[in-house]
């Protein structure tokens, strides 16, 4: 209510806004003491005694409120069913949470690493990757991430899938040695007793013992992520599952980094096991974690893989937009050209624009004579002929597309007629479909009414007396047309052209059905990325660019014609 009132007062034509404030205060008083003296003194009053000004203002406000309440349900409906989806698409075109969400430790370990320097990242990054991947693997997120990164660097998807299969063995070397030392290191119970907080019990999310976590931070963290994964994914009690090898890797790293005295001083659960292990780890056989990864797949020694992870670790990325214009993010954070064999989008945008322009040109050429004829014929005949324009306009798009598909085929009606006339030899039938020609013909046919209708409505308003006057002054018919008639019809051409062009660049169905491979538009690529390659971010970025182009064109259209003048025939 209050917001509505205030919007009402902001409107320029509302009389003296501050009166309303005084009025509201005075209104309460007025109810208690009745108006004295009537109309004789003070301002004009309405029948119920309130000043006329205020009473008018109140009714104005009520009108505005009523109008708004009538519009509100639809506005809300369109916002939810249409505007929110568009906003979601815009958001998806830059959103990139998946990398930092799936590999939180790795991305922060890579923060300091210089991706441009061609070196491998530090050992800590490999360790972090082991913890992240084993967790992601259990939660079945690693293939999704692999697919995401594969859009940027081919081969990452299979690398992640392969690594996911054996990542719970990373740290096996320590696992075996701890187990040799004490059987309990391969037992679920002792581990759980040692790490869990005293008051934790299974269905509650796992909590680590604070004292243990202070002493052995990596182990506590690695075990917690193991325990939570068990609970979330399989609803298993972590106290009944023996932890995976990366937890033992964490245990080894913690023990090596802590001196014997500190461990001896600890007296929580499992302290004797820890003391014993601390004494032994110095003699353990060791192996670099990076080497463990290399044993799974040597691609982990390829700095490019790591550079990809680092480059795409931010939550928001311009990467999809860059791909849309055949550029890519380089490892050093700069922007470089996309690999030659993947440069397809600029070509597609160019083709979409070029073909839309050709279709627009064809529509002007074919639409102008019809508009002229309709505008110069008597109303009765013009209305009859207008039906010939409106019938295709009203006919289902699919019907018109299938008609062209049937007509343009090699064994179709047009080729048959051409062969029958003798223009084309039977064995040299023309290929008119599944190429640019097919798309242009079919779309010109489909969009022609959108050109004729605005042309006709503009030409109808041109008085024929101007051309007659020009002729009576000695102009030849062609001069009279080009110098007098044509300039007056230009607004109609402009309106029709923009309308046809806007509709053409967003077309999907017709190019998909008659365009083959050379006659497809950017919208076909968007559909491909949504339903086949599942690269939704790229689809969203391409869609956003297309949307921006269309909105700019509509803005131009609005300037020239006014959006309210959209005619439906």
């Amino acid at each position, binding site marked *: 209510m209050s917001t509505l009132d205030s919007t*009402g007062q902001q409107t320029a034509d509302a009389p003296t806004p501050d009166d309303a404030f005084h009025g509201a205060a005075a209104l309460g008083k007025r109810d208690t003491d009745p108006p004295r003296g009537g109309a004789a003194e003070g301002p004009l009053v309405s029948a119920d005694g309130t000043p006329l000004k205020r009473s008018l203002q109140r009714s104005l406000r009520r009108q505005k409120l009523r*109008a708004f309440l009538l519009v509100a349900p639809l506005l809300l409906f*369109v916002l939810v069913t*249409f505007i929110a989806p*568009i906003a979601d*698409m815009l958001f998806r075109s830059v959103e990139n949470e998946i990398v930092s969400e799936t590999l939180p430790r790795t991305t922060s370990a890579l923060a300091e690493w210089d991706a441009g320097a061609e070196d491998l990242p530090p050992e800590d990054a490999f360790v972090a990757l082991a913890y992240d991947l084993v967790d992601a693997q259990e939660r079945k997120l690693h293939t999704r991430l692999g697919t995401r990164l594969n859009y940027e660097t081919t081969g990452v998807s299979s690398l992640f899938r392969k690594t996911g299969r054996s990542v719970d063995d990373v740290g096996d070397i320590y696992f075996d040695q701890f187990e040799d030392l004490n059987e309990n290191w391969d037992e679920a119970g002792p581990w759980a007793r040692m790490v869990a907080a005293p008051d934790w019990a299974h269905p509650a999310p796992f909590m680590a013992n604070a004292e243990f976590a202070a002493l052995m931070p990596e182990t506590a963290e690695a075990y917690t992520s193991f325990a939570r994964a068990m609970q979330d994914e399989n609803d298993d009690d972590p106290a009944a599952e023996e932890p995976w090898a990366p937890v033992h890797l964490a245990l080894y790293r913690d023990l090596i980094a802590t001196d014997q005295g500190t461990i001896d001083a600890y007296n929580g659960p499992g302290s004797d096991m820890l003391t014993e292990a601390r004494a032994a780890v110095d003699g353990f056989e060791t192996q670099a974690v990076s080497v463990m990864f290399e044993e799974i797949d040597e691609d982990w020694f390829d700095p490019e893989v790591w550079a990809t992870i680092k480059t795409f670790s931010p939550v928001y990325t311009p990467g999809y937009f860059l791909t849309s214009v055949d550029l890519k993010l380089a490892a050093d954070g700069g922007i470089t050209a996309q690999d030659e064999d993947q440069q397809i989008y600029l070509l597609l945008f160019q083709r979409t624009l070029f073909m839309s322009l050709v279709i627009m040109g064809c529509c002007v050429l074919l639409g102008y004579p019809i508009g002229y004829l309709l505008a110069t014929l008597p109303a009765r005949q013009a209305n009859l002929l207008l039906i010939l324009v409106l019938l295709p306009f009203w006919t289902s798009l699919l019907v018109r597309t*299938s008609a062209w598909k049937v007509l343009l085929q090699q064994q179709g009606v047009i080729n048959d007629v051409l062969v029958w006339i003798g223009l084309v030899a039977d064995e040299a039938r023309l290929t008119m479909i599944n190429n640019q020609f097919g798309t242009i013909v079919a779309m010109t046919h489909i969009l022609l009414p959108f050109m004729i209708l605005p042309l006709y409505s503009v030409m109808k308003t041109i008085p024929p007396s101007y051309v007659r006057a020009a002729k009576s002054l000695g102009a030849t018919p062609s001069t009279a047309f080009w110098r007098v008639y044509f300039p007056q019809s230009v607004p109609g051409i402009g309106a029709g052209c923009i309308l046809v062009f806007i509709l053409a660049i*967003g077309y999907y169905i017709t190019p998909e059905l008659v365009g083959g491979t050379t006659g497809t538009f950017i919208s076909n690529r968007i559909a491909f990325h949504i339903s086949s390659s599942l690269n939704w971010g790229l689809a969203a970025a391409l869609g956003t660019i297309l*949307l921006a182009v269309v909105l700019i064109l509509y803005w131009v259209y609005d300037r020239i014609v006014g959006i309210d003048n959209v005619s439906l025939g």
Partner: protein
Amino acid sequence: MAGPPSYATTSERAWYYGFRVICGLIFFFLIAPIITIIPLSFNAQDFFTFTPEMLALNPDGYSLKHYEDFFTNPDWQQAMWNSLKIAPAATVLSVSLGTLAAIGLSQPHVPFRRAIMAILISPMIVPLIISAAGMYFFYSRIGLQGTYLGVVLAHAALGIPFVIITVTATLVGFDRSLTRAAASLGADPVTTFFKVQMPLILPGVISGGLFAFITSFDEVVVVIFVGSANQQTLPWQMFTGLREQISPTILAVATLLVIISIALLATVEILRRRSERLRGMSPT
């Protein structure tokens, strides 16, 4: 037609007839593809061209077998019922909300009129593939993707601009003194709406509804993405048919759809004339 004026020169005469021939060819281009498929749909063979029997007007060359296929094939029947379930629901939704909003928008004082109008018209402006992509992303987030409700909501959103445009256009010519007269005679706003305003704007509402219906009935891009196999509509089935194995049944369906379009076009035209007459304008 009157023909060229008697004082016209020879070249003017030539141009006069030449121009009409050109226009005739363009009209032929507009209409011929649609007309051609109608006889082809009665083809007795599974061809997409005129067989010699058809050209000889031999009755053996014609048959109703493609129509029979349409009315017996479970896929096509399912698609038809889906279309007939989705389009009316979407139409009711967009007409009821759209008419209310159009009445609200035609009041003299509406805050943020231009912005609201822009939002309500936007489903018509945004290319369908973008609407489809956005709806696919968003509806799968909120669990509407692949549901009947999701498709109905999406189609209702697409139909709303047409309802808004036609109904506001009717309301422009609406004489406000009529509602004031009704109110001064003691009618409450609801009675005024149904007894005075509604009968007068009804032609606009119905043609808006027809536009919304045809939008949903013909729509294929959004339903492909927002719907699932259970919501496969007639245009979707045609699209699949055209892309995969093209069967002449499509031509039978296309012919039926052309007949529906002609019926709708005639209805809209009649309504437009009636509306102009009611508003006291002379029919043009």
